[in-house]
Protein backbone atom coordinates (compact mmCIF):
# COMPACT_ATOMS: atom_id res chain seq x y z
CA UNK A 1 0.00 0.00 0.00
CA UNK A 2 2.94 2.28 0.50
CA UNK A 3 4.62 2.04 -2.85
CA UNK A 4 4.44 5.02 -5.10
CA UNK A 5 1.06 5.62 -6.62
CA UNK A 6 0.65 4.83 -10.28
CA UNK A 7 -2.23 5.80 -12.55
CA UNK A 8 -3.14 2.13 -12.90
CA UNK A 9 -3.40 1.59 -9.17
CA UNK A 10 -5.48 4.70 -8.76
CA UNK A 11 -7.89 3.74 -11.51
CA UNK A 12 -8.35 0.25 -10.15
CA UNK A 13 -8.98 1.50 -6.62
CA UNK A 14 -11.35 4.24 -7.72
CA UNK A 15 -13.30 1.89 -9.96
CA UNK A 16 -13.62 -0.70 -7.21
CA UNK A 17 -14.78 1.92 -4.75
CA UNK A 18 -17.32 3.21 -7.26
CA UNK A 19 -18.63 -0.30 -7.75
CA UNK A 20 -19.11 -0.63 -4.00
CA UNK A 21 -20.90 2.72 -3.98
CA UNK A 22 -23.33 1.65 -6.68
CA UNK A 23 -24.13 -1.57 -4.87
CA UNK A 24 -24.66 0.26 -1.60
CA UNK A 25 -26.90 2.82 -3.28
CA UNK A 26 -29.02 0.10 -4.84
CA UNK A 27 -29.39 -1.90 -1.66
CA UNK A 28 -30.16 1.14 0.47
CA UNK A 29 -32.73 2.44 -1.96
CA UNK A 30 -34.74 -0.69 -1.43
CA UNK A 31 -34.60 -0.37 2.37
CA UNK A 32 -37.07 1.82 4.13
CA UNK A 33 -40.23 1.95 6.14
CA UNK A 34 -42.29 0.92 3.16
CA UNK A 35 -41.30 -2.15 1.23
CA UNK A 36 -40.69 -1.35 -2.37
CA UNK A 37 -40.52 -4.07 -4.94
CA UNK A 38 -38.16 -3.62 -7.86
CA UNK A 39 -40.61 -5.23 -10.21
CA UNK A 40 -43.18 -2.56 -9.51
CA UNK A 41 -40.56 0.11 -9.98
CA UNK A 42 -39.54 -1.14 -13.37
CA UNK A 43 -43.10 -1.36 -14.59
CA UNK A 44 -43.00 2.39 -14.70
CA UNK A 45 -45.24 5.17 -13.49
CA UNK A 46 -48.93 4.57 -13.73
CA UNK A 47 -51.12 6.82 -15.84
CA UNK A 48 -52.77 8.18 -12.78
CA UNK A 49 -50.94 9.49 -9.78
CA UNK A 50 -51.85 6.85 -7.30
CA UNK A 51 -51.53 3.85 -9.56
CA UNK A 52 -48.00 2.78 -8.71
CA UNK A 53 -46.93 3.96 -5.25
CA UNK A 54 -43.84 1.76 -5.28
CA UNK A 55 -42.54 3.57 -8.32
CA UNK A 56 -43.34 6.94 -6.86
CA UNK A 57 -41.74 6.22 -3.55
CA UNK A 58 -38.64 4.90 -5.28
CA UNK A 59 -38.23 7.59 -7.88
CA UNK A 60 -39.52 10.60 -6.01
CA UNK A 61 -38.19 9.90 -2.58
CA UNK A 62 -35.71 7.07 -2.22
CA UNK A 63 -33.56 7.81 -5.22
CA UNK A 64 -33.25 11.59 -4.72
CA UNK A 65 -32.49 11.07 -1.09
CA UNK A 66 -29.76 8.56 -1.78
CA UNK A 67 -28.26 10.72 -4.48
CA UNK A 68 -28.32 13.66 -2.09
CA UNK A 69 -26.58 11.60 0.58
CA UNK A 70 -23.87 10.69 -1.96
CA UNK A 71 -23.38 14.30 -2.92
CA UNK A 72 -23.21 15.61 0.58
CA UNK A 73 -21.02 12.78 1.82
CA UNK A 74 -18.54 13.23 -1.01
CA UNK A 75 -18.48 17.00 -0.63
CA UNK A 76 -17.91 16.91 3.12
CA UNK A 77 -15.24 14.22 2.98
CA UNK A 78 -13.22 15.91 0.24
CA UNK A 79 -13.59 19.25 1.91
CA UNK A 80 -12.27 17.69 5.10
CA UNK A 81 -9.25 16.38 3.22
CA UNK A 82 -8.50 19.82 1.85
CA UNK A 83 -8.84 21.69 5.11
CA UNK A 84 -6.67 19.15 6.87
CA UNK A 85 -4.00 19.66 4.21
CA UNK A 86 -4.26 23.46 4.08
CA UNK A 87 -4.22 23.89 7.83
CA UNK A 88 -1.75 21.03 8.29
CA UNK A 89 -3.95 19.87 11.11
CA UNK A 90 -5.44 16.39 11.44
CA UNK A 91 -8.27 17.76 13.57
CA UNK A 92 -9.57 20.10 10.92
CA UNK A 93 -13.02 19.50 9.52
CA UNK A 94 -15.06 21.36 6.89
CA UNK A 95 -16.73 23.56 9.50
CA UNK A 96 -13.59 24.75 11.21
CA UNK A 97 -13.39 28.05 9.43
CA UNK A 98 -16.81 29.36 10.24
CA UNK A 99 -18.96 27.57 7.70
CA UNK A 100 -21.22 26.02 10.32
CA UNK A 101 -22.04 29.20 12.18
CA UNK A 102 -22.28 31.14 8.92
CA UNK A 103 -24.80 28.72 7.51
CA UNK A 104 -26.74 28.73 10.76
CA UNK A 105 -26.81 32.51 10.82
CA UNK A 106 -28.01 32.66 7.25
CA UNK A 107 -30.74 30.15 7.99
CA UNK A 108 -31.95 31.95 11.10
CA UNK A 109 -32.00 35.29 9.32
CA UNK A 110 -34.05 33.81 6.50
CA UNK A 111 -36.53 32.35 8.97
CA UNK A 112 -36.82 35.50 11.06
CA UNK A 113 -37.34 37.78 8.13
CA UNK A 114 -40.05 35.39 7.07
CA UNK A 115 -39.12 35.31 3.44
CA UNK A 116 -41.62 33.35 1.45
CA UNK A 117 -40.32 33.47 -2.06
CA UNK A 118 -38.50 30.49 -3.45
CA UNK A 119 -35.59 30.09 -5.81
CA UNK A 120 -36.38 27.19 -8.13
CA UNK A 121 -38.59 25.73 -5.45
CA UNK A 122 -35.74 25.84 -2.95
CA UNK A 123 -36.77 27.38 0.30
CA UNK A 124 -35.06 30.65 1.19
CA UNK A 125 -33.43 28.96 4.15
CA UNK A 126 -31.17 26.94 1.88
CA UNK A 127 -30.22 29.94 -0.22
CA UNK A 128 -29.43 32.07 2.80
CA UNK A 129 -27.54 29.24 4.46
CA UNK A 130 -25.42 28.91 1.34
CA UNK A 131 -24.74 32.64 1.20
CA UNK A 132 -24.03 32.73 4.93
CA UNK A 133 -21.59 29.83 4.76
CA UNK A 134 -19.68 31.23 1.82
CA UNK A 135 -19.65 34.77 3.16
CA UNK A 136 -18.38 33.70 6.55
CA UNK A 137 -15.59 31.62 5.17
CA UNK A 138 -14.32 34.51 3.08
CA UNK A 139 -14.55 36.73 6.13
CA UNK A 140 -12.38 34.27 8.03
CA UNK A 141 -9.94 34.06 5.14
CA UNK A 142 -9.72 37.83 5.03
CA UNK A 143 -9.14 38.15 8.76
CA UNK A 144 -6.61 35.34 8.66
CA UNK A 145 -4.67 37.08 5.93
CA UNK A 146 -4.39 40.16 8.08
CA UNK A 147 -2.30 38.23 10.56
CA UNK A 148 0.42 37.49 8.07
CA UNK A 149 0.42 36.23 4.57
CA UNK A 150 0.37 32.50 4.89
CA UNK A 151 -0.10 32.05 8.56
CA UNK A 152 -2.08 28.94 9.26
CA UNK A 153 -2.46 29.73 12.93
CA UNK A 154 -3.98 33.08 12.05
CA UNK A 155 -6.60 31.36 9.91
CA UNK A 156 -7.46 28.89 12.63
CA UNK A 157 -7.81 31.60 15.26
CA UNK A 158 -9.90 33.74 12.97
CA UNK A 159 -12.13 30.73 12.37
CA UNK A 160 -12.53 30.09 16.07
CA UNK A 161 -13.34 33.71 16.80
CA UNK A 162 -15.84 34.07 13.99
CA UNK A 163 -17.51 30.78 14.91
CA UNK A 164 -17.85 31.91 18.51
CA UNK A 165 -19.15 35.34 17.60
CA UNK A 166 -21.68 34.12 15.07
CA UNK A 167 -22.84 31.37 17.40
CA UNK A 168 -23.55 34.04 19.99
CA UNK A 169 -25.48 36.06 17.43
CA UNK A 170 -27.43 32.94 16.51
CA UNK A 171 -28.34 32.35 20.14
CA UNK A 172 -29.41 35.95 20.49
CA UNK A 173 -31.60 35.85 17.42
CA UNK A 174 -33.01 32.51 18.51
CA UNK A 175 -34.06 33.95 21.82
CA UNK A 176 -35.98 36.83 20.29
CA UNK A 177 -37.56 34.89 17.45
CA UNK A 178 -41.01 33.40 17.59
CA UNK A 179 -40.70 29.89 18.92
CA UNK A 180 -42.23 27.96 16.05
CA UNK A 181 -39.81 29.27 13.48
CA UNK A 182 -36.88 28.67 15.73
CA UNK A 183 -37.70 25.03 16.24
CA UNK A 184 -37.88 24.58 12.50
CA UNK A 185 -34.50 26.16 12.01
CA UNK A 186 -32.75 24.27 14.75
CA UNK A 187 -34.22 21.06 13.46
CA UNK A 188 -33.00 21.91 9.97
CA UNK A 189 -29.56 22.71 11.26
CA UNK A 190 -29.23 19.34 12.97
CA UNK A 191 -28.78 17.84 9.59
CA UNK A 192 -31.39 16.08 7.59
CA UNK A 193 -31.84 14.62 4.18
CA UNK A 194 -34.89 16.21 2.68
CA UNK A 195 -35.94 14.96 -0.68
CA UNK A 196 -34.89 17.34 -3.41
CA UNK A 197 -36.05 17.86 -6.93
CA UNK A 198 -33.91 16.55 -9.72
CA UNK A 199 -32.70 19.83 -11.12
CA UNK A 200 -31.17 20.81 -7.82
CA UNK A 201 -29.56 17.39 -7.51
CA UNK A 202 -28.20 17.58 -11.04
CA UNK A 203 -26.65 20.98 -10.55
CA UNK A 204 -25.37 20.05 -7.12
CA UNK A 205 -23.81 16.86 -8.46
CA UNK A 206 -22.12 18.80 -11.23
CA UNK A 207 -20.66 21.28 -8.80
CA UNK A 208 -19.47 18.71 -6.31
CA UNK A 209 -17.94 16.32 -8.83
CA UNK A 210 -16.44 19.22 -10.74
CA UNK A 211 -14.99 20.60 -7.54
CA UNK A 212 -13.49 17.28 -6.55
CA UNK A 213 -11.94 16.89 -9.99
CA UNK A 214 -10.39 20.34 -9.75
CA UNK A 215 -9.00 19.44 -6.35
CA UNK A 216 -7.61 16.27 -7.84
CA UNK A 217 -5.80 18.38 -10.43
CA UNK A 218 -3.92 20.18 -7.67
CA UNK A 219 -3.27 17.12 -5.52
CA UNK A 220 0.51 17.09 -6.03
CA UNK A 221 0.55 20.67 -4.80
CA UNK A 222 -1.55 19.71 -1.80
CA UNK A 223 0.92 16.93 -1.05
CA UNK A 224 3.74 19.45 -1.03
CA UNK A 225 1.74 22.00 0.96
CA UNK A 226 1.12 19.57 3.76
CA UNK A 227 4.83 19.75 4.47
CA UNK A 228 4.85 23.44 5.09
CA UNK A 229 4.96 26.56 2.99
CA UNK A 230 8.72 26.98 2.80
CA UNK A 231 9.10 23.35 1.78
CA UNK A 232 6.30 23.55 -0.75
CA UNK A 233 7.83 26.61 -2.31
CA UNK A 234 11.13 24.85 -2.80
CA UNK A 235 9.23 22.16 -4.63
CA UNK A 236 7.92 24.61 -7.14
CA UNK A 237 4.41 25.04 -5.78
CA UNK A 238 2.66 28.37 -6.18
CA UNK A 239 1.49 28.60 -2.61
CA UNK A 240 -0.94 31.50 -2.81
CA UNK A 241 -2.54 30.15 -5.96
CA UNK A 242 -2.93 26.64 -4.62
CA UNK A 243 -4.28 27.82 -1.29
CA UNK A 244 -6.86 30.08 -2.85
CA UNK A 245 -8.09 27.50 -5.33
CA UNK A 246 -8.22 24.72 -2.76
CA UNK A 247 -9.85 26.95 -0.19
CA UNK A 248 -12.44 28.35 -2.58
CA UNK A 249 -13.46 24.97 -3.94
CA UNK A 250 -13.61 23.31 -0.54
CA UNK A 251 -15.64 26.19 0.86
CA UNK A 252 -18.01 26.13 -2.11
CA UNK A 253 -18.76 22.43 -2.02
CA UNK A 254 -19.20 22.54 1.75
CA UNK A 255 -21.59 25.46 1.43
CA UNK A 256 -23.56 23.51 -1.15
CA UNK A 257 -23.66 20.48 1.11
CA UNK A 258 -24.77 22.53 4.11
CA UNK A 259 -27.44 24.40 2.22
CA UNK A 260 -28.91 21.14 1.00
CA UNK A 261 -28.82 19.13 4.16
CA UNK A 262 -27.96 21.18 7.21
CA UNK A 263 -24.91 20.51 9.37
CA UNK A 264 -23.81 16.90 9.34
CA UNK A 265 -20.72 16.36 11.39
CA UNK A 266 -18.16 13.60 11.57
CA UNK A 267 -18.04 12.79 7.89
CA UNK A 268 -15.55 15.51 7.05
CA UNK A 269 -13.35 14.61 9.96
CA UNK A 270 -13.12 10.86 10.03
CA UNK A 271 -13.53 9.72 6.44
CA UNK A 272 -10.25 11.41 5.38
CA UNK A 273 -8.52 9.83 8.35
CA UNK A 274 -9.94 6.40 7.70
CA UNK A 275 -8.91 6.51 4.04
CA UNK A 276 -5.50 7.85 4.99
CA UNK A 277 -4.99 5.04 7.47
CA UNK A 278 -5.72 2.39 4.88
CA UNK A 279 -4.41 3.90 1.66
CA UNK A 280 -1.87 6.49 2.72
CA UNK A 281 -1.75 10.30 2.64
CA UNK A 282 -1.08 10.87 -1.06
CA UNK A 283 -3.79 13.36 -2.07
CA UNK A 284 -4.03 12.10 -5.63
CA UNK A 285 -5.61 9.02 -4.14
CA UNK A 286 -6.93 10.42 -0.90
CA UNK A 287 -9.27 12.86 -2.62
CA UNK A 288 -11.22 10.63 -4.98
CA UNK A 289 -11.34 7.76 -2.50
CA UNK A 290 -12.43 9.99 0.38
CA UNK A 291 -15.18 11.35 -1.81
CA UNK A 292 -16.46 7.90 -2.68
CA UNK A 293 -16.19 6.53 0.83
CA UNK A 294 -17.78 9.67 2.22
CA UNK A 295 -20.72 9.03 -0.10
CA UNK A 296 -20.95 5.38 0.94
CA UNK A 297 -20.77 6.30 4.61
CA UNK A 298 -23.49 8.90 4.43
CA UNK A 299 -25.82 6.73 2.34
CA UNK A 300 -25.57 3.99 4.95
CA UNK A 301 -25.93 6.45 7.82
CA UNK A 302 -28.99 8.02 6.23
CA UNK A 303 -30.59 4.62 5.64
CA UNK A 304 -30.05 3.77 9.28
CA UNK A 305 -31.49 7.15 10.28
CA UNK A 306 -34.59 6.30 8.31
CA UNK A 307 -35.23 2.90 9.81
CA UNK A 308 -33.86 2.73 13.34
CA UNK A 309 -36.68 4.60 15.06
CA UNK A 310 -39.28 4.29 12.35
CA UNK A 311 -41.73 5.85 11.77
CA UNK A 312 -39.78 8.78 13.13
CA UNK A 313 -36.42 9.73 11.66
CA UNK A 314 -33.21 10.41 13.51
CA UNK A 315 -31.16 13.43 12.42
CA UNK A 316 -28.42 12.05 10.21
CA UNK A 317 -25.75 13.79 12.27
CA UNK A 318 -26.65 11.60 15.24
CA UNK A 319 -26.16 8.45 13.22
CA UNK A 320 -22.88 9.57 11.69
CA UNK A 321 -21.47 10.18 15.14
CA UNK A 322 -22.72 6.93 16.64
CA UNK A 323 -21.75 4.80 13.66
CA UNK A 324 -18.58 6.63 12.80
CA UNK A 325 -17.00 6.76 16.23
CA UNK A 326 -16.51 3.08 17.02
CA UNK A 327 -15.77 2.27 13.40
CA UNK A 328 -12.98 4.78 13.36
CA UNK A 329 -11.61 3.51 16.65
CA UNK A 330 -11.46 -0.01 15.27
CA UNK A 331 -9.61 1.24 12.21
CA UNK A 332 -7.20 3.18 14.36
CA UNK A 333 -6.34 0.17 16.49
CA UNK A 334 -5.73 -1.99 13.48
CA UNK A 335 -3.51 0.37 11.58
CA UNK A 336 -1.94 2.34 14.39
CA UNK A 337 1.46 0.86 13.81
CA UNK A 338 1.72 2.76 10.60
CA UNK A 339 0.74 6.09 12.09
CA UNK A 340 3.87 7.91 13.23
CA UNK A 341 2.36 10.59 15.38
CA UNK A 342 0.70 8.06 17.59
CA UNK A 343 3.97 6.50 18.70
Amino acid at each position, binding site marked *: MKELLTPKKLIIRTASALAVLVVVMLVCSLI*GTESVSLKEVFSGAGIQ*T*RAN*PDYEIFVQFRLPRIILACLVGAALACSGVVFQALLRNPLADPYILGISSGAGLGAIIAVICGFNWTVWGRSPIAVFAFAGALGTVWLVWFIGRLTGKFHVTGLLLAGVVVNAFFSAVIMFLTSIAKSQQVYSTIFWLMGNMAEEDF*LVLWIGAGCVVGGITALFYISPQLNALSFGEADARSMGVNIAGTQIIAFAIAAAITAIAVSLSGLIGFVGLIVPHAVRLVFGPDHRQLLPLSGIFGAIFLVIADTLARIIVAPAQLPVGVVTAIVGGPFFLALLVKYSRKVSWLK
Partner: protein
Amino acid sequence: MNKWWWLFLILSCWMAAGFAIFGPLQGQNCGDTALPARAERIVSLAPNLTEILFALGLEKEISRVTLDSDYPPAAAQKPNVGTFWQPNIEAVIAAKPDLVITLGFHQQKNIAERLKQIGYNTLTVNIEKVNDLFKAIEKIGAATGKQLQANELATNIRKKLDRLSTLVGTEEKVRVLWVVQREPLRVAGRDTFVNEMLEVAGGENAIGRTVHKYPPIGAEQVIVCGADVIIEPAMAQEDPARQQNRALQYWSKFENLPAVANKRIYVIPGDTVSRLGPRLYEGTETIARCLRPELFEN
Protein backbone atom coordinates in the same frame (compact mmCIF):
# COMPACT_ATOMS: atom_id res chain seq x y z
CA MET B 1 -6.55 22.11 -24.55
CA ASN B 2 -5.32 21.67 -21.02
CA LYS B 3 -7.11 19.80 -18.30
CA TRP B 4 -8.70 22.93 -16.78
CA TRP B 5 -10.40 23.89 -20.00
CA TRP B 6 -11.69 20.37 -20.42
CA LEU B 7 -13.14 20.47 -16.91
CA PHE B 8 -14.81 23.80 -17.56
CA LEU B 9 -16.24 22.57 -20.84
CA ILE B 10 -17.62 19.33 -19.49
CA LEU B 11 -19.07 21.12 -16.46
CA SER B 12 -20.81 23.69 -18.64
CA CYS B 13 -22.29 20.99 -20.84
CA TRP B 14 -23.49 19.15 -17.74
CA MET B 15 -25.25 22.23 -16.36
CA ALA B 16 -26.82 23.05 -19.70
CA ALA B 17 -28.05 19.48 -20.04
CA GLY B 18 -29.54 19.69 -16.57
CA PHE B 19 -31.54 22.77 -17.41
CA ALA B 20 -32.63 21.28 -20.69
CA ILE B 21 -33.89 18.08 -19.10
CA PHE B 22 -35.36 19.31 -15.86
CA GLY B 23 -35.96 22.98 -16.50
CA PRO B 24 -39.34 22.58 -18.22
CA LEU B 25 -40.52 20.37 -15.38
CA GLN B 26 -40.18 23.18 -12.86
CA GLY B 27 -43.44 24.43 -11.52
CA GLN B 28 -45.31 21.83 -13.46
CA ASN B 29 -48.08 20.11 -11.60
CA CYS B 30 -48.58 16.80 -13.21
CA GLY B 31 -51.49 14.63 -12.31
CA ASP B 32 -55.06 15.53 -11.51
CA THR B 33 -55.45 18.94 -9.97
CA ALA B 34 -59.16 18.98 -9.35
CA LEU B 35 -60.30 17.94 -5.91
CA PRO B 36 -62.58 14.93 -6.03
CA ALA B 37 -66.16 15.48 -4.99
CA ARG B 38 -65.82 12.91 -2.30
CA ALA B 39 -62.47 11.92 -0.86
CA GLU B 40 -62.35 8.27 0.07
CA ARG B 41 -58.82 7.85 1.29
CA ILE B 42 -57.81 10.75 3.51
CA VAL B 43 -54.50 11.13 5.29
CA SER B 44 -54.43 13.55 8.21
CA LEU B 45 -51.09 14.83 9.40
CA ALA B 46 -52.09 16.36 12.73
CA PRO B 47 -54.13 15.28 15.74
CA ASN B 48 -56.52 18.24 15.65
CA LEU B 49 -57.13 17.67 11.93
CA THR B 50 -57.99 14.07 12.73
CA GLU B 51 -60.45 15.20 15.36
CA ILE B 52 -62.10 17.53 12.88
CA LEU B 53 -62.44 14.75 10.33
CA PHE B 54 -64.02 12.45 12.88
CA ALA B 55 -66.36 15.21 13.97
CA LEU B 56 -67.48 15.60 10.35
CA GLY B 57 -68.35 11.91 10.24
CA LEU B 58 -65.47 10.88 8.01
CA GLU B 59 -64.22 8.04 10.16
CA LYS B 60 -64.45 5.46 7.40
CA GLU B 61 -62.74 7.64 4.86
CA ILE B 62 -59.68 8.29 7.00
CA SER B 63 -56.87 6.08 5.76
CA ARG B 64 -53.94 7.14 7.88
CA VAL B 65 -53.20 9.48 10.76
CA THR B 66 -50.17 10.55 12.72
CA LEU B 67 -48.94 8.71 15.79
CA ASP B 68 -50.19 11.38 18.16
CA SER B 69 -53.75 11.36 16.84
CA ASP B 70 -55.30 9.68 19.84
CA TYR B 71 -58.84 11.13 19.97
CA PRO B 72 -61.35 9.78 19.52
CA PRO B 73 -60.07 6.34 20.54
CA ALA B 74 -60.95 5.00 17.12
CA ALA B 75 -58.32 7.31 15.69
CA ALA B 76 -55.58 5.63 17.66
CA GLN B 77 -56.50 2.39 15.91
CA LYS B 78 -55.78 3.80 12.47
CA PRO B 79 -52.41 3.00 10.89
CA ASN B 80 -49.97 5.87 11.26
CA VAL B 81 -47.56 7.78 9.07
CA GLY B 82 -45.10 9.09 11.64
CA THR B 83 -45.55 12.00 14.03
CA PHE B 84 -47.04 15.34 13.18
CA TRP B 85 -43.61 16.85 13.66
CA GLN B 86 -41.97 14.33 11.32
CA PRO B 87 -44.47 12.69 9.02
CA ASN B 88 -43.15 9.81 6.97
CA ILE B 89 -43.83 10.87 3.43
CA GLU B 90 -43.22 7.41 2.04
CA ALA B 91 -45.94 6.00 4.25
CA VAL B 92 -48.26 8.74 3.04
CA ILE B 93 -47.68 7.72 -0.57
CA ALA B 94 -47.96 4.04 0.19
CA ALA B 95 -51.44 4.77 1.51
CA LYS B 96 -52.54 5.92 -1.97
CA PRO B 97 -54.45 8.90 -0.59
CA ASP B 98 -56.80 11.03 -2.64
CA LEU B 99 -56.59 13.84 -0.13
CA VAL B 100 -53.81 14.77 2.26
CA ILE B 101 -54.56 17.38 4.91
CA THR B 102 -51.67 19.17 6.57
CA LEU B 103 -51.05 22.06 8.91
CA GLY B 104 -49.30 25.18 7.75
CA PHE B 105 -45.99 25.21 9.55
CA HIS B 106 -42.70 24.91 7.72
CA GLN B 107 -42.13 21.17 7.76
CA GLN B 108 -45.67 20.19 6.86
CA LYS B 109 -45.96 22.91 4.26
CA ASN B 110 -42.86 21.51 2.55
CA ILE B 111 -44.34 18.05 2.51
CA ALA B 112 -47.59 19.38 1.09
CA GLU B 113 -45.66 21.19 -1.66
CA ARG B 114 -43.73 18.07 -2.48
CA LEU B 115 -46.86 15.95 -2.69
CA LYS B 116 -48.59 18.57 -4.84
CA GLN B 117 -45.63 18.56 -7.21
CA ILE B 118 -45.98 14.85 -7.75
CA GLY B 119 -49.68 15.26 -8.28
CA TYR B 120 -51.41 14.46 -5.03
CA ASN B 121 -54.32 16.48 -3.74
CA THR B 122 -53.36 18.35 -0.64
CA LEU B 123 -55.10 20.78 1.62
CA THR B 124 -53.08 22.96 3.97
CA VAL B 125 -54.77 24.81 6.79
CA ASN B 126 -53.37 27.10 9.43
CA ILE B 127 -54.93 26.62 12.83
CA GLU B 128 -53.40 29.07 15.23
CA LYS B 129 -56.35 31.07 16.51
CA VAL B 130 -59.97 30.25 17.20
CA ASN B 131 -61.08 31.98 14.01
CA ASP B 132 -58.61 29.85 12.07
CA LEU B 133 -60.30 26.78 13.51
CA PHE B 134 -63.69 27.76 12.17
CA LYS B 135 -62.22 28.60 8.80
CA ALA B 136 -60.37 25.30 8.72
CA ILE B 137 -63.55 23.37 9.55
CA GLU B 138 -65.24 25.14 6.68
CA LYS B 139 -62.42 24.40 4.25
CA ILE B 140 -62.20 20.76 5.22
CA GLY B 141 -65.93 20.44 4.92
CA ALA B 142 -65.81 21.90 1.42
CA ALA B 143 -62.94 19.66 0.38
CA THR B 144 -64.66 16.49 1.53
CA GLY B 145 -68.19 17.27 0.48
CA LYS B 146 -69.36 17.61 4.07
CA GLN B 147 -70.31 21.27 4.02
CA LEU B 148 -73.50 20.64 5.95
CA GLN B 149 -71.80 18.81 8.74
CA ALA B 150 -69.04 21.42 8.84
CA ASN B 151 -71.57 24.20 9.26
CA GLU B 152 -73.35 22.30 11.95
CA LEU B 153 -70.12 21.60 13.84
CA ALA B 154 -68.98 25.19 13.70
CA THR B 155 -72.36 26.56 14.77
CA ASN B 156 -72.53 24.05 17.58
CA ILE B 157 -69.19 25.05 18.99
CA ARG B 158 -70.01 28.74 18.68
CA LYS B 159 -73.32 28.32 20.44
CA LYS B 160 -71.80 26.50 23.35
CA LEU B 161 -69.03 29.06 23.70
CA ASP B 162 -71.56 31.89 23.67
CA ARG B 163 -73.61 30.18 26.33
CA LEU B 164 -70.55 29.82 28.49
CA SER B 165 -69.67 33.40 27.92
CA THR B 166 -73.08 34.51 29.09
CA LEU B 167 -72.90 32.25 32.12
CA VAL B 168 -69.57 33.68 33.08
CA GLY B 169 -70.92 37.16 32.72
CA THR B 170 -68.97 40.34 32.81
CA GLU B 171 -67.85 40.24 36.39
CA GLU B 172 -64.30 40.84 37.42
CA LYS B 173 -61.90 38.75 35.41
CA VAL B 174 -59.75 36.20 37.15
CA ARG B 175 -56.06 36.72 36.63
CA VAL B 176 -54.57 33.54 35.23
CA LEU B 177 -51.00 32.43 34.74
CA TRP B 178 -50.92 29.72 32.09
CA VAL B 179 -47.74 27.73 32.53
CA VAL B 180 -46.66 25.70 29.53
CA GLN B 181 -43.29 24.65 30.89
CA ARG B 182 -41.71 24.89 34.30
CA GLU B 183 -38.01 24.69 33.63
CA PRO B 184 -37.27 27.08 32.15
CA LEU B 185 -40.46 28.90 32.99
CA ARG B 186 -42.60 29.44 29.90
CA VAL B 187 -46.09 30.82 29.82
CA ALA B 188 -48.76 31.42 27.22
CA GLY B 189 -48.86 35.03 26.14
CA ARG B 190 -51.76 37.17 24.97
CA ASP B 191 -51.36 36.35 21.30
CA THR B 192 -52.34 32.71 21.58
CA PHE B 193 -55.52 30.68 21.23
CA VAL B 194 -55.07 29.72 24.89
CA ASN B 195 -55.56 33.34 25.74
CA GLU B 196 -58.74 33.42 23.70
CA MET B 197 -60.04 30.44 25.64
CA LEU B 198 -59.10 32.13 28.90
CA GLU B 199 -61.07 35.22 28.05
CA VAL B 200 -64.19 33.31 27.15
CA ALA B 201 -63.86 31.39 30.39
CA GLY B 202 -63.85 34.59 32.38
CA GLY B 203 -60.14 35.00 32.84
CA GLU B 204 -57.44 37.46 31.98
CA ASN B 205 -53.85 36.69 31.29
CA ALA B 206 -51.69 37.74 34.22
CA ILE B 207 -48.89 38.53 31.77
CA GLY B 208 -49.14 41.63 29.65
CA ARG B 209 -48.42 41.89 25.96
CA THR B 210 -45.24 40.14 24.93
CA VAL B 211 -43.23 39.79 21.75
CA HIS B 212 -43.29 36.02 21.92
CA LYS B 213 -46.33 33.87 21.82
CA TYR B 214 -44.99 31.64 24.54
CA PRO B 215 -42.42 33.79 26.31
CA PRO B 216 -39.96 32.52 28.85
CA ILE B 217 -40.32 34.62 31.98
CA GLY B 218 -38.29 35.19 35.08
CA ALA B 219 -39.20 34.86 38.73
CA GLU B 220 -39.66 38.62 39.11
CA GLN B 221 -42.41 38.72 36.57
CA VAL B 222 -44.10 35.86 38.34
CA ILE B 223 -44.01 37.75 41.63
CA VAL B 224 -45.50 40.94 40.23
CA CYS B 225 -48.11 39.33 38.01
CA GLY B 226 -50.51 38.81 40.89
CA ALA B 227 -52.12 35.72 39.41
CA ASP B 228 -55.26 34.44 41.11
CA VAL B 229 -55.05 31.09 39.38
CA ILE B 230 -52.22 29.06 37.94
CA ILE B 231 -53.08 26.50 35.30
CA GLU B 232 -50.69 23.91 33.93
CA PRO B 233 -51.75 21.63 31.09
CA ALA B 234 -50.69 18.12 32.06
CA MET B 235 -48.18 16.17 30.05
CA ALA B 236 -49.61 13.02 28.57
CA GLN B 237 -47.04 10.58 29.90
CA GLU B 238 -47.08 11.45 33.56
CA ASP B 239 -49.64 10.57 36.21
CA PRO B 240 -51.79 13.69 36.73
CA ALA B 241 -51.89 13.32 40.51
CA ARG B 242 -48.13 13.31 40.75
CA GLN B 243 -47.95 16.29 38.44
CA GLN B 244 -50.39 18.13 40.68
CA ASN B 245 -48.22 17.43 43.71
CA ARG B 246 -45.09 18.55 42.03
CA ALA B 247 -46.78 21.68 40.82
CA LEU B 248 -47.90 22.56 44.33
CA GLN B 249 -44.40 21.99 45.57
CA TYR B 250 -42.85 24.12 42.90
CA TRP B 251 -45.13 27.07 43.32
CA SER B 252 -45.05 27.10 47.08
CA LYS B 253 -42.06 29.39 47.03
CA PHE B 254 -44.12 32.17 45.51
CA GLU B 255 -46.12 32.59 48.70
CA ASN B 256 -47.22 36.15 47.99
CA LEU B 257 -49.14 35.11 44.89
CA PRO B 258 -52.89 34.92 45.53
CA ALA B 259 -52.95 31.72 43.50
CA VAL B 260 -50.50 30.06 45.83
CA ALA B 261 -52.04 31.49 48.98
CA ASN B 262 -55.47 30.24 47.99
CA LYS B 263 -54.12 26.96 46.64
CA ARG B 264 -55.67 27.60 43.27
CA ILE B 265 -53.14 25.70 41.22
CA TYR B 266 -54.68 23.38 38.68
CA VAL B 267 -53.11 20.71 36.54
CA ILE B 268 -55.64 19.96 33.85
CA PRO B 269 -55.67 17.33 31.09
CA GLY B 270 -53.65 18.63 28.20
CA ASP B 271 -55.42 17.40 25.08
CA THR B 272 -58.42 19.64 25.04
CA VAL B 273 -56.49 22.81 25.82
CA SER B 274 -53.25 22.32 23.93
CA ARG B 275 -54.86 21.16 20.74
CA LEU B 276 -57.02 23.62 18.90
CA GLY B 277 -59.74 21.38 17.57
CA PRO B 278 -63.42 20.46 17.79
CA ARG B 279 -63.15 19.95 21.54
CA LEU B 280 -62.54 23.66 21.92
CA TYR B 281 -65.65 24.00 24.02
CA GLU B 282 -64.71 21.12 26.33
CA GLY B 283 -61.34 22.69 26.93
CA THR B 284 -62.81 26.12 27.58
CA GLU B 285 -65.34 24.69 30.00
CA THR B 286 -62.59 22.88 31.90
CA ILE B 287 -60.81 26.19 32.28
CA ALA B 288 -64.01 27.90 33.39
CA ARG B 289 -64.49 25.24 36.06
CA CYS B 290 -61.07 26.16 37.42
CA LEU B 291 -61.64 29.88 37.30
CA ARG B 292 -65.24 30.08 38.45
CA PRO B 293 -66.02 26.82 40.19
CA GLU B 294 -69.03 28.35 41.89
CA LEU B 295 -70.83 28.60 38.55
CA PHE B 296 -70.79 24.85 38.14
CA GLU B 297 -71.94 23.82 41.59
CA ASN B 298 -75.15 22.38 40.29
